[in-house]
């Protein structure tokens, strides 16, 4: 199968599975909280309805407001197509560099933050300010985890890192790897806007970070933003899964291998999402000015991961 076709299939898979993953997480939380909860496909119903509603642009807002959801979606799809979820052999080896992935995700965040400022409302500015502060403080942890992972293979190419892990289990089950996984997990919580950094289900504007930036969006703009957010969560959970549990990723582009890899990938995502949702039941959101402490803790874990990998290598 051509590499380009495989990339498109992969992006389509991530786009299709992302809302289902959100539905699954809501279902797990509901069961643990004693509720019946909605169906797994409910987020897809929400998206379908939103695409049919009319989009609204506030007066005083310009092209940045309408462009931001599209840019967010574009960066999410690009990363979903390029990252090694199904196969370690992608068509865009230049875009599957770990630093590039971090940069593209940050580009999406910036687009949304600028849109929040463009609305000219106080909540939009508040959301943008908080989101950019958290994004700035998460960067060191992310790049130190990249550092720790790149020592496995001497390169930051995602496909090479995953392939090295799949062929050599000893490279995956090291103390450095465990520390890097812990650091990256906390960073993923912050980037994806989940508890304890941000509560995606809150209605109190003063506790919002991500939601505050999208209070003004309606219709298909909102559909794109929600879909892209779900995709970003799937992308990050998928990266966490494939970097630290790399078995099941195909080494070639054979259709059968890809189909098997897709199944394993969905299973891994489901397990991680279930763990995250179950964990969220026990957590409360941290106050905004306690979040730097959490991120500093994850930074120390990342630093230990790098030093351990250098000393024990």
């Amino acid at each position, binding site marked *: 199968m051509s590499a380009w076709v495989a990339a498109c299939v992969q992006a389509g898979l991530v786009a299709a599975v992302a809302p289902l993953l959100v539905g699954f997480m809501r279902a797990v939380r509901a069961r643990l909280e004693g509720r019946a909860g909605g169906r797994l496909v409910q987020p897809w119903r929400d998206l379908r309805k939103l*695409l*049919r509603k*009319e*989009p*609204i642009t*506030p*007066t*005083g807002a*310009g*092209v940045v407001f309408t462009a931001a959801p*599209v*840019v967010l*979606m*574009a*960066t999410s*799809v*690009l990363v979903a197509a390029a990252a090694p979820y199904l196969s370690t052999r992608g068509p*865009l*080896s*230049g*875009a599957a*560099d770990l*630093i*590039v992935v971090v*940069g593209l995700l*940050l*580009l999406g965040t*910036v687009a949304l*933050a*600028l849109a929040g*400022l463009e*609305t*000219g*409302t106080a909540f939009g*500015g508040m959301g*943008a*300010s908080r989101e*950019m*502060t958290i*994004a*700035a*403080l998460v*960067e*060191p942890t992310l*790049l*130190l985890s990249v*550092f720790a992972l*790149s020592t496995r*293979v*001497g*390169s*930051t*190419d995602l496909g090479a890192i995953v392939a090295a892990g799949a062929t050599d289990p000893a490279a995956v089950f090291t103390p450095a790897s465990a520390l890097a996984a812990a650091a990256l997990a906390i960073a993923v919580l912050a980037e994806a806007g989940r508890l304890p950094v941000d509560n995606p289900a809150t209605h109190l504007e003063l506790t919002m970070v991500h939601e505050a930036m999208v209070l*003004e969006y309606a219709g*298909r703009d909102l559909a*794109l933003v929600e879909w892209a957010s779900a995709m970003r969560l799937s992308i990050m959970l998928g990266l966490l899964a494939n970097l630290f549990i790399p078995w099941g990723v195909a080494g070639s582009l054979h259709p059968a291998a890809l189909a098997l890899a897709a199944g394993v990938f969905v299973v891994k995502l489901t397990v991680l999402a279930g763990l995250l949702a179950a964990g969220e039941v026990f957590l409360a959101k941290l106050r905004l*000015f306690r979040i*730097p402490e959490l991120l500093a803790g994850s930074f120390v874990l990342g*630093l230990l991961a790098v*030093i351990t990998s250098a000393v024990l290598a």
Partner: protein
Amino acid sequence: MNQVATALGVAFAVAGVGALAGLVVPARVRSAAAGAATTGVGLAGAAAGLCAVSGTSWQVHLPNLLPLAGVSLAVDALAGWFLLLVGGVAAVVGVYTVGYAGQSGHGPASRTALAMLPVFVAAMLLVPAAGSVSTFLLAWELMAVTSLLLVLSEHRHSPAVRTAGLWYAAMTQAGFVVILLGQAWLAAAAGGESFATIRAAGPGLSPVVSGGVFLLCVTGFASKAGAVPLHPWLPRAHAEAPSNVSALMSAAMVKLGVYGIVRVGFDLLGGGQRWWWLLLGALGVVSALYGILQAAVATDLKRLLAFSTSENIGLILLGLAAAGLWAEAGQPAVAGVALAAALLHAANHAGFKSLLFCGAGSVLKATGTRDLDELGGLSRRMPATTALVTVGALGAAALPPGNGFVSEWLLLQALLHQAPGGGTVMIVAAPVAVAVVALTAGVGVATYVKALGTGFLARPRSTAAGRAVESPRSMLAGMGLAATVCIGLAVVPGVAAPALDRIATGLRAGSAPLPSSGVDVRLSGVASTISPLWIAVGVVGLTVGFAALARAVGRARRRAAPWDCGDGPLTARMEYTATSFAEPLQRVFDNVLAPEQDVDVTHPAESAYLVRAVQYRRRLPDRIEARLYRPLIAAVEKVGRAARVLATGSVHRYLAYMLTALVAVLVAGVIR
């Protein structure tokens, strides 16, 4: 004849003509004449640089031009890179000046300012072209004096300009003295003042001499580059100078400090000891962090950009330090990558910083203010300027697909490389350096979201901003030129690869770091690649595709009032300001920034329990300036006052001083 020689000759000739024109021509056409001359000098310099990085080199010695030492010029690939950089920035600024300076004949359009502009550019071209110590120092001082005159262009405008000029003059001259000492010591120890002689004698110098020379030269050059803690002149001078001068200084002049460090450290002294590079790395780390933190909380747009320059210089110095350390550790391939990262970042920074300063100048000219808390709504009134500034901000924030991202990627690749033989120092220093680069990048993104979001988007926060009009075409053309260069470097940085390979091999600082880099950027010694072109195509293509799809599907868009929670219309007063946007970051880094707050409560005469007015003031002073420089200035003043007793006014006493000094020099000459 040698192409480099021709191009440089043309450049200097045009500079002379331009200076004359600036002095003589009437005010109506003065800006156009000086701007055109500056562009001419810039293009000629860039052409010289292009020839030099493509392999042509040139040496000449003109003994009769200067008494005692003569003028010696030597252009190699390294000099060519900086000639290209300075020439490019000058071309952009020249076009921009035509509209910016205007026809008033005052301030940036005065005779002095416009005559000095081409001379400043010529001096900046002379610095990399210098081939001997005396020529280098001459060019350096010429550059300092002309830039000082340009900084003071608007001195009638405000006292802040005069203070800025004073700080700049003092620190530049102090830096010059330090560089003079270092270079004179080097020339004396090497037995000759031409760079060729020094280069030959470099490896043979004793560690004390080379270490001392390196220390002195780095101090002087780092001060010119704006590295913290030698930076206090930079935010003042770059903020108070006219914006075209700020662009030249921030994008081109500070790079010549970097050039000096590369020339002395890598070329003339031939590498050297490990502690040099650790010191440089420490300087780089401190500059990067302090610079970006101050930029993040700055509300003055030009001060923000100036501190951002400090930050980028910090990253460049970090790259140079990494190059030196890897070369010491016997890893020439990675050393070459680090050097390439530093030089490419210098070029990228020149591109986006000149664009951003020109944009700040456009905003200042259109609204009369550069306070971000008073701007806003410019995307509707000045759409072309906003679009161009967005390109610059994307590059400055080091996000893909901007140009700053590629050089930052290169820098990270050089720092992430793990190799045996590094020792404990490298094991601890490398992750710290990566963490610093990452934090700097993160806070940098927040800074530029603040600058773009509060300065240009949403609604105007003051009447001045509400009355802005789009800039004249020449200013947009200058910015457009810079934007084109930024986009070119962002999408095909591979065009710079042969030049960087040549420089790295020429400096003996590494083997060709970027072999076979066409559309992709491939590294030697490191197994990572990146395709900036495909990233850009992917992002832009998918954005356009999704936008088209979104328009075709679904209902029509409606305009409505912003959702204000039901209670009354929103005013511009309710928008987030730059201060409020940066407040969470300022709180996180409270210990570094140490803001000072004053709350004044006035009570009515009747009762102290009632409040008539509350005034809240918050200042974010530059802590290093307050803790390091003010005591120093106070000490100097004290010494000066104490030394007054020497100057009583008695002629007999002064004659006695002169006699003593003469006798002392004669005795010293005889004894030695």
